[in-house]
């Protein structure tokens, strides 16, 4: 969407882009003052670690959504990636890491090919692969009865459990990927193509933007990242848990939207997505701190929060 930059527009944009960041800062300050334990290094480390897995998935989702698409398969691919990593870990570090990336990447590639080449809706194609990936997971785990364990002495476990200054490796992986993702999105021609594809697909095609190739790439990326997040989680849990990741695609979409990326495509930032993850995780953390509230309130608050953000975004855009 091309708009003429006017003063109001610029101000709106700042609010839109910084709105989530302002909310995050406020949440953190208030939580810190209210719950002394919130600010403890242990809690912050835990918070960052919990958020890192979602960040990895949400980076891919951000790219997909900017092209105007959606990827519902990431929750299943996340679980599949974890199981594949745990199974592969018996053949060493490399197998544990590459197997999930390759398999989930290929499923993402198929998503992309179907969407780009056959004009089928992303929603329905990735809905089918959500089912397919879950089915594949069940097939390799004896219908979910078999949870593969990762040997404790495996180097792979270190990837999930190792720490630097107490901060887990997954946090660094997520941070590096976020920086990389931001650079790819803003500094490369591929990134420009991603924006162009989502902004005005017809015009992009006419201008010679490789729309089909761009779409194939973003879905492949999204699948691979979901697989990686699963592998990291498996390394952290030391096993391939079969039942995780149900509904995770919706969490990922929610944080991307909270971060200011428009579902209509053509606009969005990785930083916003990271902030979106931060917000959701801080809310969950605070609800846990309150203690007397049962965990069901987490989803109520998350839902209300998502609602407030999208309504505000909509009002600011007018």
């Amino acid at each position, binding site marked *: 969407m091309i708009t003429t930059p006017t003063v109001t527009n610029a101000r709106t944009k700042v609010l839109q882009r910084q709105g989530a960041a302002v909310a995050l800062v406020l949440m953190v300050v208030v939580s810190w003052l209210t719950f002394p334990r919130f600010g403890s290094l242990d809690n912050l480390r835990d918070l960052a670690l919990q958020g890192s897995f979602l960040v990895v998935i949400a980076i891919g989702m951000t790219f997909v959504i900017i092209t105007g698409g959606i990827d519902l398969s990431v929750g299943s691919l996340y679980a599949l990636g974890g199981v594949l990593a745990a199974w592969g870990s018996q053949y060493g570090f490399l197998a544990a890491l590459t197997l999930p990336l390759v398999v989930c990447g290929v499923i993402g590639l198929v998503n992309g090919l179907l969407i780009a080449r056959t004009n089928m*809706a992303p929603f329905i194609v990735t809905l*089918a692969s959500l089912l*397919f990936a879950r089915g594949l997971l069940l*097939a390799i785990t004896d219908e979910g009865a078999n949870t593969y364990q990762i040997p404790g002495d495996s180097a792979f476990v270190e990837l999930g459990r190792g720490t630097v200054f107490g901060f887990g490796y997954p946090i660094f992986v997520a941070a590096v990927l976020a920086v990389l993702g931001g650079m790819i999105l803003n500094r490369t021609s591929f990134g420009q193509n991603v924006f162009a594809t989502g902004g005005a697909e017809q015009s992009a095609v006419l201008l010679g933007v490789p729309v089909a190739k761009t779409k194939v790439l973003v879905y492949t990326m999204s699948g691979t990242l979901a697989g990686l997040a699963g592998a990291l989680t498996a390394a952290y849990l030391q096993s391939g848990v079969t039942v995780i990741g149900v509904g995770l695609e919706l969490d990922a979409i929610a944080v991307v939207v909270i971060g200011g990326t428009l579902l209509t495509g053509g606009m969005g930032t990785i930083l916003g997505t990271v902030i979106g993850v931060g917000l959701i995780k801080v809310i969950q953390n605070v609800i846990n701190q309150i203690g007397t509230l049962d965990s*069901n309130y987490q989803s109520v*608050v*998350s839902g*209300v929060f*998502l609602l407030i953000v999208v309504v505000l975004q909509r009002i600011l855009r007018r």
Partner: protein
Amino acid sequence: MTRTTTQAATRTVISTAAARTRWLQDNGVYVAVAVLLLFNALFTANFLTLGNFTTQLVQAAPVLIVALGMALVIGTEGVDLSVGAVMALAAAIIPLYLGAGPLMAITMALVIGVLAGAFNGFLVAKVGIQPIVATLALLVGGRGLALVIADGQLVQLHDETFLELGTGDVLGIPISVLIAGLLALVVAGLTNRTTFGRQLVAIGGNRKAATLAGLPVNRVLIGVYAITGVLAAIAGVLATSRLAASDPADMGLLMELSAITAVVVGGTPLTGGKVRVLGTVFGVILMQLVRATLIKHNLPDSIAQMIQAAIIIAAVYVARERR
């Protein structure tokens, strides 16, 4: 002369091919159901029994009721992800009011459904939020709210009259199946024979044009989402009654995906502007038959899910719009 004949011949070939694709697009779901029925009649033991058909229909009834609403929403170029959460809300409400009689409990559940749906419709129509996001908020929050209401507990229900809804039958036809069939007729009438139905399809086809033509776009959209909400609540009530327990944690889980699948497999395009009620009914029956066939032939869940995925892709591939 020869050239004209060849051209004419080519044209005929092309138009027959196009006609064949078109026919397959329109009738694929009926053919698929017929093929599956035939296959089961020949190769599945105890398939052609009244008991089996009743079981299949009873299992399909709540999905069908939800899918009917989903078809309407998709017809407006929208989608409703909150239907499963609304079912859970309805389930959570029932034990609270069952003391005041089953009628009171059911009414309250349906009121919640209407309110939830109207709220979605308000967000989509008046605030202008994309349907996926607007209904995603209720999907995330709704089930949580249902669990908060129910205190996270499963509650056994003992009210005879209420349980009759799930177990009773009229002339051998289970009540829930009757209700589902009746609602299918109502929704079909609504889409094909009323102004509301025509306006709904017009909005889905081209919202801007519909607005310019002076159609009451907001009112119709809110109405459509409210109908979807109440249908989801009805499905929640029936499923709760059949379960003889209020179980907000599991009630309607992933129902949005089943409903969307059935609607799309039934030939209603996600791009809006068209609602196929009979197709939706057969879409639900097809997915139910697929599941039943796989189970009866002892195929594991894993294979069943992968086959369902393939069927969804195949159905949408056939029905897709050409560039």
